[in-house]
């Protein structure tokens, strides 16, 4: 049964025929050269419209769907994950440039010409050299201002996450201090007896310090393991939620090192602070009920 639905989508044309097939993530259908021209559809569009590779679809440049042209779906591709387009519907197709020109009845014009340089480090120099030769055209490196602005968004988000982490660490430290205070207080009598039988303050402090290191280290490692176990689930949830291949959480060695470097000293400090509140008392007052 023929299906008909007008779907608005973004179309991009690629100048090289070979490129059309390069980024396909799924299977390629047998292509008959005599049939309609080929296109690639994004995975999201394929799924949303229940299309399949090899199917013939009609595409029109007119929002009302007038003057459609048939295209055969040659393959499906995963759009480049773009954090700036999080939540945006990636209903896109890729056409050969002559097909797009024919579809839009436009002259032989393009939005941009991408140039691949043998040495990407020379991009800025190349842009400077070419710009005066093409008056009225904009020549710029793909890693220039737009990319800087893109990065700026994530630098800000990174700062925000860091600020949240600082507040969480402060809250956790207070929690830890409360816990160690109570832990130490529970041993009030034991510490009093140890002091009475001759243990020096320093030795008891060292004992509590060692306990603090073990507790903080175990806590930190448990936290890292928990984060590592949860990261897959978090990524899968957000990838499903936003229909994207982006990675949202990644537990890197740097993150592990930073979290251990913060949590272990904090745990040790909390142990020392709480132990000191106990040890500064006289032995007799500690063993008294």
């Amino acid at each position: 049964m023929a299906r008909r639905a007008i779907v608005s989508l973004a179309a991009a044309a690629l100048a090289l025929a070979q490129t059309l097939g390069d980024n396909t993530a799924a299977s390629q259908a047998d292509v008959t050269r005599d049939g309609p021209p080929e296109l690639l559809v994004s995975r999201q569009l394929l799924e949303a419209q229940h299309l399949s590779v090899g199917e013939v679809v009609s595409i029109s440049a007119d929002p009302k769907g007038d003057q459609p042209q048939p295209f055969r779906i040659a393959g499906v591709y995963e759009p480049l994950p773009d954090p700036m387009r999080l939540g945006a519907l990636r209903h896109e197709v890729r056409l050969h440039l002559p097909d797009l020109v024919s579809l839009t009845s436009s002259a032989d014009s393009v939005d941009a010409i991408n140039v691949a340089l043998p040495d990407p480090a020379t991009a800025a120099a190349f842009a400077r050299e070419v710009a005066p030769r093409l008056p009225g055209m904009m020549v710029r490196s793909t890693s220039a201002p737009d990319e800087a602005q893109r990065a700026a968004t994530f630098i800000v988000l990174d700062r925000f996450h860091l600020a949240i982490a600082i507040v969480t660490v402060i809250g956790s430290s207070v929690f830890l201090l409360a816990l160690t205070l109570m832990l130490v207080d529970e041993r009030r009598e034991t510490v009093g007896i140890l002091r009475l039988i001759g243990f020096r303050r320093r030795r008891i402090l060292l004992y509590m310090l060692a306990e603090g290191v073990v507790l903080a280290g175990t806590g930190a490692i448990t936290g890292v393991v928990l984060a590592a176990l949860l990261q897959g689930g978090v990524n899968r949830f957000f990838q499903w939620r936003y229909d994207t291949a982006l990675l949202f959480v990644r537990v890197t060695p740097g993150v592990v090192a930073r979290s251990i470097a913060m949590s272990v000293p904090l745990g040790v400090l909390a142990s020392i602070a709480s132990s000191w509140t106990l040890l500064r008392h006289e032995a007799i007052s500690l063993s008294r009920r």
Partner: protein
Amino acid sequence: MSTATRSLAFAARSLLRQPGRAGVGILGIAAVGALLFDMLLLSRGLVVSFRELLDSVGFDVRILSSDSLPMGGARLANASQIARDLAALPEVAEAIPIRVIDAEAVPAVGFALMAIDGDFRAGRAGRAGRDGGYEGSEGLVINQRLADALKVKAGDTIRVRVSCVSGRAPLPPSPFPVAGVGEFPFDDGAQLTASTSWARLRSACGGEGDDADMLLVASREGHGADAAVRAIRRARPDLHPATNEEIVARMQQGSFSYFRQISAVLSTITLLFGFLLITVLLTVSVNQRLAEIAAVRALGFSRGRVAADVLWQSALLVGSGGLLAVPLGFALSLWLDRILKAMPGVPTSIHFFVFEPRALALHATLLVVTALAAAMYPIRLVAALPIAETLRNEVV
């Protein structure tokens, strides 16, 4: 003195006996409470702020070429005619097209040039010259940053190259008088913006192009935005009108949802954290006072009375921490808001953390629920305490 008051006083004395521990507990709850409060402000902050921003412009319906977000889809062709047709509808008070293109002031200062007509120029969102110099329709109203970048003031003339079609080479420069310096509500902290009339932009584009990014519609008083949208859909089924509420809902589904979700995740974690903190504090406190509790039970205190003591202790800890959390959360939200507002493309008038009375009510409710839940286990401990056995073990 009622039983409840006596119980409260007893719980307060129990906490005051160990001020260090109680103080640390309250501080811990204040820290997690502040974060919780901020997450509640963040959960709807962008939505509330964006809605206020849309409403402040004075139009309650936006018309687009598709169901995409404003400025995100294809342009509307024959915009002037559409605006005239829509303005004739009884439900519509005003309809004006808006278009934003790239422009460059000679020698090389790039800025966004907005073409817009109608009463909008009278100052609802930036057409008005702050210095009162704008009178005609041919001039530019520029924002202060652009005025500073170009070192111009009202009355000066600048030469501007416009790019009427995205990606195409800009047209040769043409002179634009500066009519005034204004403020544009959707500007971010670094944006250079100017506005001119629809006719002037068309003339600068060589007379071609009557395409609009969007049509702004003000519904007629007494009809409302929903009635205007229905009327527009009836008159022009090919258009995609949306009320401000619908636009905000679309934003919520898209780019705003990240902050809503991070707020939900962090709220859950902070609540869990607070629950653990209070449970541990109360449980250890109860364990250390088993002998005392058994003694007061032997003296005639009922199970309910000792359970109420634990519950009041939990309420006092959470109540004091929660009260402290609100000003702390406010201060923290200012800091976090400043961090997030540095994001490029975020209008200066948008806030990520916005106070609403419902956030305060929800904060209080969540803390009360946490206090009750956290007190459950220690209450069970004291209620099930065997008096004789405890006295024998703890005292003898």
